[in-house]
């Protein structure tokens, strides 16, 4: 920069893209207790994910002996892939559980 001259001024455009507002969803109501409930364990295909859920399942059954579990293996890292390729199967599984613990494994 030349300190003897006034620096040029630039009026600049934003690089940050607009995104359409999308309908917002709140969380599903929480359970009052876990005893007797069916807990879904959602597992992506990162190799730590099933091990994390194994540990969670063990603790869950110890603390809530009447709770049951059901697993769903996503076979992908990507939520979009799951939505695109196995939406029907996934939604059917969701309907059959009371709550879900998802393990990303990352």
């Amino acid at each position, binding site marked *: 920069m030349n300190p003897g001259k006034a620096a040029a001024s*630039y009026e*600049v*455009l934003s*690089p940050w*893209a607009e995104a359409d507002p999308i309908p*917002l969803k709140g969380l599903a109501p*929480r359970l009052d207790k876990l005893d007797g409930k069916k807990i879904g364990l959602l597992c992506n295909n990162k190799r*730590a994910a099933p091990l994390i859920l*194994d540990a969670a399942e063990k603790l869950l059954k110890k603390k809530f002996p009447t709770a049951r579990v059901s697993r769903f293996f996503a076979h992908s890292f990507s939520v979009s892939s799951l939505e695109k390729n196995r939406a029907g199967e996934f939604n059917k599984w969701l309907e059959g559980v009371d709550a879900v613990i998802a393990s990303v494994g990352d």
Partner: protein
Amino acid sequence: MSAASSKGMPVIRVVPETVVSECTIVKDIQAAVKAVFNNVVDALTKPLTAAEKSPKSREPENPPRVIFKGTLEEVNRFFYQRGWTDGLPIIPPTEAAVKEMMTGTDFPADHLVEKLEPRLGKATIEKIAVNAVIAGCLPTYMPLLIAGVHALASNAVCGMMAASTGSFSPFWLVNGPIAKDINIRSTYGAASPGDIANASFGRAMGLITKNIRGIRKQVEDMGVLGNPGKYTWVVAENEENSPWEPFHVSRGFKKEDSTLTLMFAQSFQQMMPFGTDDKGILATIVGSIVPARQGTFAALLTPNNAKSIADGGWSKKALKEYIVKNTIVPDDYFSRLGLKTDKPFDRGDVTGPGVSPQIFRPNPHSPDPVQVFVLGGFGSWMGFLQGGPDPMITKVELPKNWAQLVKKYRNVVPNYAKY
């Protein structure tokens, strides 16, 4: 969190734990889960807050188009502090500069090219041009940038690749006449700095990834080691010195078509071939595909290496088949390393009845897991890329006044002084 937000759930309950990504140590995992298990129970049972029941969007619906006014230094500081750059200095995207950039396309400024995941940011012509100006592009790169945006939207896995802990980097391969029209380097040092097209096109796509896709370092991009290719990694195939048909022709395009191919390479390795004849080169390729790697494999052959192989009577197809057939993991490979399992990297091994010794396929889900690109100068060093899904190839559409545009900008090349 950002992924959930882009699906309409800006508030979710996440229980952080201390398990390292891809961890295989069961006792560490058990201890980490035990430490936070009460938080998991709370997340499932604690009543929802008002914000969790009825969340509000975190972004304003109508961000200002003109965002700042200031000196070169002030503009640079402003953009950097908002996370809109790659850390290098930028060209201010003024109205005039963006307007000139958009002369590189016939589409109007508000034309929506794609909405890019995960943020579903609108990649309009103007927004692409703003990021192109920042990166230092010339207007003749707009057709390539538009093709690049289409490529990013062509496969849902692209978002995951950019955000992965594995630090996959976009690798952009240009084929067809556009490479010479805009001076994309295909010869000596094709992937090294020094050419405005190779440098700024890849840089602009990186900025588009940040500012339109919304994938920022350690926010959405959780790459553990990072990858220098994310600054820019752009080459053209050295078609005129290749003994085989160019890559885009092998994918069904005409030779006179221009195409842009996107791979997400994780690793780049260079090797001196064991010998410079076909046998030496083939052995080097097969010996360099290690079982620990995952994803598509690409051999980068110099014109000399490619000629040696072709002189040995190999077509590109036969070469690829040879690589797949002969990349074999010895039966005792893993046990000799002290591992109990015979396939610790289960995404790459092909096993089954009668399959012995194990055959390692770089990408077991792909019918075409090996790619061969000819590029670089005249020499013997070989390059190998590994990682990511099948290459995604997109045709580049040119504007009507392409010839005039090329004439205007083609001579923007470095002229090195001799000493």
